[in-house]
């Protein structure tokens, strides 16, 4: 980034002053409702029925789609918008992910978009008037060999050059930061050090979807659930509407944000994407007393762990090795993840796991997303977030709304266009996004 002021220094700690999110939730509203036995709460968004025509339609009611619709209405004044979701709101990867948020990626292009998102996270609960439980508890990535530690410090310097907080910790500092970790140097993969982004952390995934849905609905956006898109109708090279399980909807702008189903929806307009749909799995344990107040991940032993506010240990790892749309993963992956977790955190060995699930993520050859126009006029894609798009939710929605409204990408979105797979200008983030999400 040659300019003096990096792109991501746009909005700071949210975008205060945007409309949406009424009626107001507050301590006062809570007290008033308490007096009425909580009978007076209004539903947070309407159960909208599809209208004949919209100015723009967003396919996919996950966090990214809902954020896009919200910013279309709040920033660009485009209010005749529908979000069309085949299942229920937030039932895709938004409601299945392990909620890790950070912006410590290697390249300038990534720093721009993930840091833009992180700044929006910092103000999101206020902006949307909805508590998304954003908790900046820090994200610590550990290294298990001399080489990995050197590579990590190279990465830390690159990240700091982009004005993003990042620091190296030695084993003793790690032990102090995370008392339950095993720093014994005789284990198979000893902890040699790590790097920490203190501003990273977690948020409540469902609340993000609900917060955006409520704020968008307040601005007139129709959120249409149980409505599957089955076709993209074109007239020549222009989009003119979408076919759905609930009939045809006319529109001249369509934004597709369907994660694991991106190839399926793209094929409806004869568009091919470089993505592969893979299961990504996670587990949560029974709830226990607080033992871990940060997020720990290890790329080498393939696992990461945090503790939810309810006390459950939340564990995850890398993607399954073959393509699938089945929303369930194969057993060797969690087995591997658990053995790594137990070696690093012996205290976890007697925990019982409560739930285990998978989501279908759309992985890209360079582990970076696609935010792009297509050969079809009025048809836009936002996909390829793979294993790590939750953290980008607000930033992704913000720049995608901008792309749809203005029919040209802004400087943050531009490097993520589809044509990078022809020019070769890839944004290779395998080192930052391989196992770590």
């Amino acid at each position, binding site marked *: 980034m040659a300019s003096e002021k990096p792109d991501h220094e746009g909005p700071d700690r949210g975008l205060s002053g945007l409309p949406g999110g009424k009626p107001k939730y507050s301590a006062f509203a809570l007290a008033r409702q308490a007096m009425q036995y909580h009978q007076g709460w209004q539903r947070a968004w309407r159960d909208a029925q599809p209208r004949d025509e919209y100015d723009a339609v967003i396919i996919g009611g996950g966090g990214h789609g809902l954020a896009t619709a919200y910013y279309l209405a709040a920033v660009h004044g485009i209010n005749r918008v529908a979000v069309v979701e085949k299942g229920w709101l937030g039932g895709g990867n938004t409601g299945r992910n392990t909620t890790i948020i950070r912006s410590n990626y290697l390249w300038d292009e990534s720093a721009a978009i993930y840091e833009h998102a992180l700044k929006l996270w910092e103000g999101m609960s206020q902006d949307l008037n909805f508590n998304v439980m954003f908790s900046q508890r820090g994200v610590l990535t550990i290294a298990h060999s001399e080489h990995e530690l050197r590579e990590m410090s190279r990465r830390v310097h690159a990240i700091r050059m982009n004005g993003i907080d990042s620091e190296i910790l030695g084993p003793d500092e790690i032990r102090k930061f995370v008392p339950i970790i095993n720093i014994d140097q005789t284990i198979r993969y000893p902890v040699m050090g790590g790097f920490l982004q203190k501003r990273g952390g977690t948020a409540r995934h469902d609340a993000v979807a609900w917060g955006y849905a409520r704020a968008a609905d307040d601005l007139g956006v129709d959120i249409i659930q149980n409505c599957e898109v089955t076709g993209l109708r074109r007239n020549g090279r222009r989009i003119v509407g979408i076919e759905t399980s609930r009939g045809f909807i006319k529109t001249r702008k369509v934004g597709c944000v369907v994660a694991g*189903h991106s*190839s*399926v929806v793209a094929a409806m307009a004869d568009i*091919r*994407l*470089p*993505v*592969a*749909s893979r299961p990504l799995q996670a587990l949560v344990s029974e709830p226990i007393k607080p033992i871990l107040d940060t997020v720990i991940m290890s790329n080498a032993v393939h696992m990461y762990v945090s503790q939810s506010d309810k006390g459950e240990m939340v564990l995850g790892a890398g993607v399954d*090795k*073959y*393509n*699938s*749309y*089945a929303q369930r993963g*194969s*057993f*060797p992956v969690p087995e591997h993840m658990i053995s790594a977790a137990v070696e690093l955190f012996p205290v976890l060995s007697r925990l019982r796991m409560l739930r285990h699930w998978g989501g279908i993520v759309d992985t890209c*050859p360079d582990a970076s997303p696609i935010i792009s126009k297509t050969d079809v006029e009025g048809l836009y894609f936002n996909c390829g977030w793979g294993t790590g798009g939750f953290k980008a939710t607000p930033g992704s929605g913000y720049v995608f709304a901008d792309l749809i409204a203005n029919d040209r990408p802004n400087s943050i979105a531009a490097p993520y266009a589809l044509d990078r*797979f*022809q*020019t*070769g200008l890839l944004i290779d983030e395998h080192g930052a996004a391989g196992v770590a999400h």
Partner: protein
Amino acid sequence: MLLITCPYCGPRDESEFSCGGEAHIARPLAESSLTDAEFADYLFLRDNPKGLFLERWRHAAGCRRWFNMARDTVTHEIVEIYPMGSGPASKAGKAAHAASWRRDTAAEAASKPAHKSRAKKDKVS
């Protein structure tokens, strides 16, 4: 969890295998005759069907040999396993092979020896 029948070793647990992704992607021989967009079809674009998928697998923790597999990406049913260098034999496998967009790409056309012989003929004349 898959039970995969290695054509050389018999039925084995999925964890012994590694998956090599989409099968039947031939390297274009006449690369320089392709545009960047056409070459991208070969290099980056992958079939990602919801349904039957033709893919390559390797018995990594066994005989270490490659083979092809036709597998459904929704049910995970393995429809057939067939050797490298040959096409699918089942009706469903053949249909999936013929239906792939890749069959119509310039990159695939440029992978056929016919392409080469045309070049040769040009030289002779």
